[in-house]
């Protein structure tokens, strides 16, 4: 009876493996939650959370001032439930759409002249009254695809990229299109504007420069991979990440001054302060590079992918990580000053003021941390409600 017994054992092992292989993939596919960061202006902090709504909160205590859309006015997609939702949890690329009423918010709100501007995955750009949260434009601006790129406001014009391969320039007052430019693929990179030129990266592996007034192409630069991060201009150089490399380019001649390679992709926007380039990588590291030569000054392992930009304030580098941590590092040495565990991945760029750090997480939480110690001052929604 040895052979049948052995066969049953092998059969049992195979059955367990098959069940585990299916079970392990159920619910394991990354959901769409967006990575819009917070922005504090005066006494309020504005943010889009992964529940698909835009919030205005009291900056001191986290009390909700308003929310858009209000719960009684939900629009857009709702999560699929039942069998499809359950099956979708087992199937990457399918299943229940996440992101709430606005389909997910990847942009950090911009506030100017009492208006909050925010783009959403539901293909719309909103202008909301900063006091009341009501729509300012007659209707939201409709792009041709989901908006993943951040917004840039320059001289009364909002610039942003879109999944329909267009870069849009929208009048901030009227909410109407000034022009649009067609690139080769989805645009997730936030545009940077300098001296009348808009610089942005594209998923077609190119860096573009277009005229800010007319949208006419000035030049492109081919790289080896997708450019998701926003280019940063500092000291006469344009710094941008493409695939696993950081480039320092002369924007006038498109000559590359230096390149730095890491083990994975650069999706975080480079931050340039005091001749140092700070940039996170999907290899879990934060790098500090010499802005003139690209030499490595220090690096720090955060334990999770780093997609958010590093914010430098008071000689401290603040960075969020997929490892559900917010870290404060000495900007000169990379030494850890403090780290704070939060609920959810920190993929959005923190906002740092004189004494507070605001971060949003993938679990639809906004944290207010003490800038010196990382202690949680408040969180929204409050912990009891979140649990």
């Amino acid at each position, binding site marked *: 009876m040895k052979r*049948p017994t052995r*066969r*049953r054992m*092998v*059969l049992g092992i*195979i*059955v367990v*493996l*098959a069940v*585990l*292989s*299916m079970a*392990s*993939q159920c619910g*394991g*596919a*990354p*959901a*769409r*939650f967006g*990575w819009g960061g917070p922005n504090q202006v005066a006494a309020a902090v504005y943010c889009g959370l992964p529940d698909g709504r835009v919030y205005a909160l009291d900056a001191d205590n986290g009390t909700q001032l308003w929310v858009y859309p209000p719960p009684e006015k939900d629009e857009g997609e709702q999560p699929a439930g039942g069998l*499809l939702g359950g*099956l*979708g949890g087992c*199937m*990457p*690329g*399918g*299943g229940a759409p996440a992101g709430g009423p606005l389909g*997910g918010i*990847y942009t950090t709100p911009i506030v100017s002249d009492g208006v909050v501007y925010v783009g959403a*995955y539901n293909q719309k750009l909103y202008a909301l009254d900063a006091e009341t949260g009501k729509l300012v434009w007659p209707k939201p601006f409709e792009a041709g695809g*989901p908006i*993943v790129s951040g917004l840039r406001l320059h001289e009364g014009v909002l610039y942003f990229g879109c999944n329909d391969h267009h870069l849009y320039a929208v009048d901030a007052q009227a909410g109407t299109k000034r022009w649009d430019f067609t690139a080769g*693929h*989805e645009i*997730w990179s936030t545009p940077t504007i300098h001296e009348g030129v808009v610089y942005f990266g594209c*998923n077609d*592996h190119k860096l573009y420069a277009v005229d800010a007034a007319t949208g006419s192409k000035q030049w492109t630069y081919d790289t*080896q*991979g*997708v450019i*998701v991060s926003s280019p940063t201009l500092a000291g006469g150089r344009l710094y941008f990440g493409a*695939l*696993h490399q950081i480039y320092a380019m002369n924007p006038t001649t498109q000559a590359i001054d230096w390149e730095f390679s890491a*083990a*994975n*992709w650069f*999706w975080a926007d480079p931050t340039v302060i005091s001749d140092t380039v700070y940039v996170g990588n*999907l290899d879990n590291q934060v790098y500090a590079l010499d802005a003139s030569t690209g030499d490595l000054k220090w690096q720090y392992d955060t334990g999770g*992918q780093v*997609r958010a930009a590093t914010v430098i304030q008071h000689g401290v580098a603040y960075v969020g990580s997929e490892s559900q941590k917010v870290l404060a590092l000495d900007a000169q040495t990379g030494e850890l000053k403090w780290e704070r565990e939060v609920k959810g991945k920190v993929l959005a760029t923190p906002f740092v003021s004189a004494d507070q750090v605001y971060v949003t997480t993938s679990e639809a939480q906004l944290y207010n941390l003490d800038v010196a110690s990382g202690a949680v001052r408040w969180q929204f929604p409050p912990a009891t409600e979140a649990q």
Partner: protein
Amino acid sequence: MEITALWDLFWNNLIFNPLLNALVLLTILLGGYYGLAIMVFTILVRLITMPFTVKQLRSSRAMAVLQPQIKALQKKYAQDKEKLSQETMKLYGEAGVNPLGGCLPALIPWPIMIALYQSILQMMPSHPEQLMDLSKHLYPFQAIWQVVPVQNVFLGLDLSMSAMTAGQWQYYILPILVVVSSWLQQKMLTSPVADAQQAQMNQTMQVTMPLFIGFISLQFASGLSLYWITYNVVTMVVAYVLMRDTMPPLSSYLPASIAAYLPFGTSAQPRAKKPSAATDEVGEATAIKARAPKKKPASRRRKKRRR
């Protein structure tokens, strides 16, 4: 390390990541056409796992042949379960059939096909978080990274879009083909059974399962439909080539009005069996008894030289 983390480590490093990166390499070799890579890769993986499927099919057909005798035993020993069990096992032994022989081969390809299916979808991220997650699974070679994002458009369809999302009529063609190919495959490969109730259940499954799979295909990326169609067609072709001696002709699966135009006959009777090598499963060609050693003609026998 937690058990789930350990399992993820095992699954990703040994099964999922190799398949995913092989798919990417194939995409590069095929000029960046991801749709073509899906089809070719599905064919290759299916061919590799096909022997297990064929073994399972042979086993189930062998079991089907024994059904009348098993029913007779059940009637005879209705009151004596132990005797029934003994006689049933004896019947299996005499016929050389292993009742579990089909289960094991049927399950072995499953983890591979699940990994293949996930690889196909992973390479068509529907939102930024998925593309970010993809970075954890691709091997650190620039040639592989440069493929991202893959060329999703194939035969005029964006393979990352589902029929429901796209809302255009041409996106419904693939799910329809999924239903048709799934139905045909089930019809071809389901073994006939003597039990009327079982037969009824099989018939119901032949209708409901393809419809269910087609419904799922409507919701998910079109690349998945391409995978399913290729999977079904390869399965049918290989199974027919290897087991056509025990199958009715192809035309019997189709309506007469369509079959009349086909070149491969309309008879519903299986072809005459050709003698083939011995197997231990009933229902295949009869075993050739062990050949007695042939004696060479006397003139050819070598005489041992004595020294």
